[in-house]
């Protein structure tokens, strides 16, 4: 509180002195500032646990274990959706959690502005959740040779990276049962795609020897990071790539992407039977 008060007093002294002559703008006497340790996001460590990551990407430090036995996760908008041992949990910024549904095994998951989407490529069922309306489902078109690798909400349906018999494609699956294929995802048969992550502007794609950022305008940028097996959203602006050589953070800022190695942890001796460390 004292920090805030001092900052407030300092700011106000200057604000009133300098801005008060302005005819159209008056800054009120309640200006204040806060200084915090920055949180880059949440990462999935090598022991299947979630940990907060502090600092800046290239010089980050790890916090303690927040959740254990995590199969998959996705964090954004101050929320994390976590699949642990067959259950889906939501964690808010205060650390409190609530169970959302019982699901069997990891399923593709995408975040919306206020909730989460789950999609079953077997049934075509798209589950939407938000704190106001709870669960709602709709059915999207399915075909037997489609396997959704990743998706993101788009209109009343989803944009999805789909593996078909004839390769990898970006498609839009709409609630009216239509499927629109709008681009092919390049793939080398000898070096197949292992993981993909859809971004607002393009996608990240991982092969055995590299990760590529492909933007919507078709431009691409390659990073020599091999062995990536999955992508997860760490925060609004960061994606974690888990690989056999360590975990990496892809941080987006003002159209640029920065890549850094995330701090590693010692392998756990034994997997705890418990489910959540709170």
């Amino acid at each position: 509180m004292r920090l805030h008060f001092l900052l407030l007093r300092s700011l106000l002294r200057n604000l009133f002195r300098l801005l008060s002559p302005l005819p159209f703008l008056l800054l009120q006497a309640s200006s204040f500032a806060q200084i915090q340790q920055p949180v880059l996001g949440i990462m999935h460590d090598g022991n299947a646990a979630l940990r907060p990551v502090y600092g800046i990407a290239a010089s980050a430090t790890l916090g303690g274990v927040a959740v254990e036995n995590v199969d998959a996760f996705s964090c954004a908008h101050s929320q994390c959706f976590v699949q642990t041992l067959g259950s889906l949990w939501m964690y808010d910024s205060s650390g409190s959690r609530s169970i959302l549904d019982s699901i069997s095994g990891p399923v593709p998951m995408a975040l919306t502005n206020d909730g989460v989407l789950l999609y079953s490529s077997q049934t075509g069922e798209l589950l939407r959740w938000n704190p106001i309306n709870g669960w709602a489902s709709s059915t999207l078109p399915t075909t037997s040779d489609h396997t959704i690798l990743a998706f993101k909400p788009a209109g009343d349906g989803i944009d999805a990276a789909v593996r078909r018999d004839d390769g990898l494609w970006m498609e839009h699956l709409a609630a009216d049962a239509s499927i629109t294929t709008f681009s092919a995802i390049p793939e080398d048969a000898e070096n197949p795609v292992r993981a993909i992550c859809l971004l607002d502007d393009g996608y990240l794609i991982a092969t055995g020897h590299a990760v590529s950022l492909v933007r919507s305008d078709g431009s691409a940028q390659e990073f020599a990071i091999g062995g990536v097996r999955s992508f997860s959203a760490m925060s609004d602006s960061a994606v974690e790539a888990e690989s056999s050589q360590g975990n990496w953070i892809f941080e987006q800022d003002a159209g640029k992407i920065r890549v850094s190695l995330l701090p590693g942890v010692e392998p756990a001796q034994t997997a705890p039977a418990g489910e959540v460390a709170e």
Partner: protein
Amino acid sequence: MNRLTLTCLFLLTAAVANAQLALSTVAGTTQTPVTTVYGFGQIALGDVKLVSFRAVNSSSATVTVTKLALSGSGFTFSGNPPIPYIIAPGGHMDFTIRFAGSTVTNYSASLQVNTQIVTLLASVVSAPTVSVASPCTGPDSESTISFGRVQQAASLICTVTVTNAQTQQVTLSPISVTGSAFNTSQASAAFIPPGQSISFPVKFTASSATAFTGTLTAGVRTYTLTGTGFNAPLSSPQFTFDTSTMSSGEQHTLAVKLSSASPVAASGNITLGFKPASASVADDSAVQFVGTSKRVVSFTVAQGSTNVLMNGQNSVVFSTGTTAGVITFTIDAGAYGISGDASASIAVAPAPTLLTAAGASRVATGLKITLSGFDNTYSLGTFSFAFFDRNGSAIGSPIAANLSTNFQSFYQGQTAGSSFLLLANFPVNGDATQVGGVEVTVTNSAGSTRTQRMSFP
């Protein structure tokens, strides 16, 4: 029972018991029975010989040793047990006899243990003296000749000289060397004329990095030979970084090579140390090997290779943290050792505040500015906010704010680096939509940093 009866019983017991004492000599774990005569053998003039004896009670009754005596010159007890000495059935009593003769002649003495008597014999002979040339040392007071430390698989030859200071010829026999690491080409016997000497080589070969012992027998004298094999130190390490200039907030790679091939398969650790430039912080834990979040990484190097593998890789990633200072890498090869400088340091210079993200937004009550970054000098405090209208014209003069005290409080006791997230709210009374953008200038002891103009959406 009266006193006479008691006395008779005691004498009877003693007489029976004496017949049950068996004498022997003891050398290590070897016992050699002694009957009526025991010879100490030839002893060089000026030398001392110690012989350990053991009296064993082989009867089923207790034996009390009431007499332990020596008669004759040259022989003395060394550390006698207290007499009387009671030996339980199956037990024993040890004692040591020391012989040292002052003249070249034959010696004899009587050893008495209770009623058992043994004649001791010894012969003092004139013996040539043994010396060794550098780099060997000795013989010392324990008759030990040291070959010192020899690199594994290497050999060291020392010259042994035997001098006959007597006035008559000496036959030196035997001449022998034992021990797997030691050998000599010298014949097994030699004649040494009066006043002259002979020399011969003794070779020590260290087949492994361990201690070796052997013996050199030169006539009546026997010497212990010692030598130690050791691994050659690894040659001086060459630390290589992916860049010559480093700044805070970066990740870099370290690779290490040896200046010459490793003579052995070796392993050890490379440690990372950090000394902040600022006295206001003690450390920055983000300065670390990133892959393990630690400041030590194990390494291996194969025999014949110069490549130092760290955690099995040719290079290792480390973070420079967010604090100016000196990062030092030190290689420790443990018992193998390192020749040359085992450390390398890199300096991370103080720099103006680096802003990693900046944002401007509108909130219900006004304007919100978010800045994140780090100040590796820990001196941040002066901020200047320059507001612009929607036409790009400046709104008055920039607003200065001194947040030094706030940042000092924030950094107090901080050991995880200087990164910060500043959230500044500017409540507005009026038409806040007329404020189109803002530029923020932050100043620390190393200079100023200015954001690009951020637009309020």
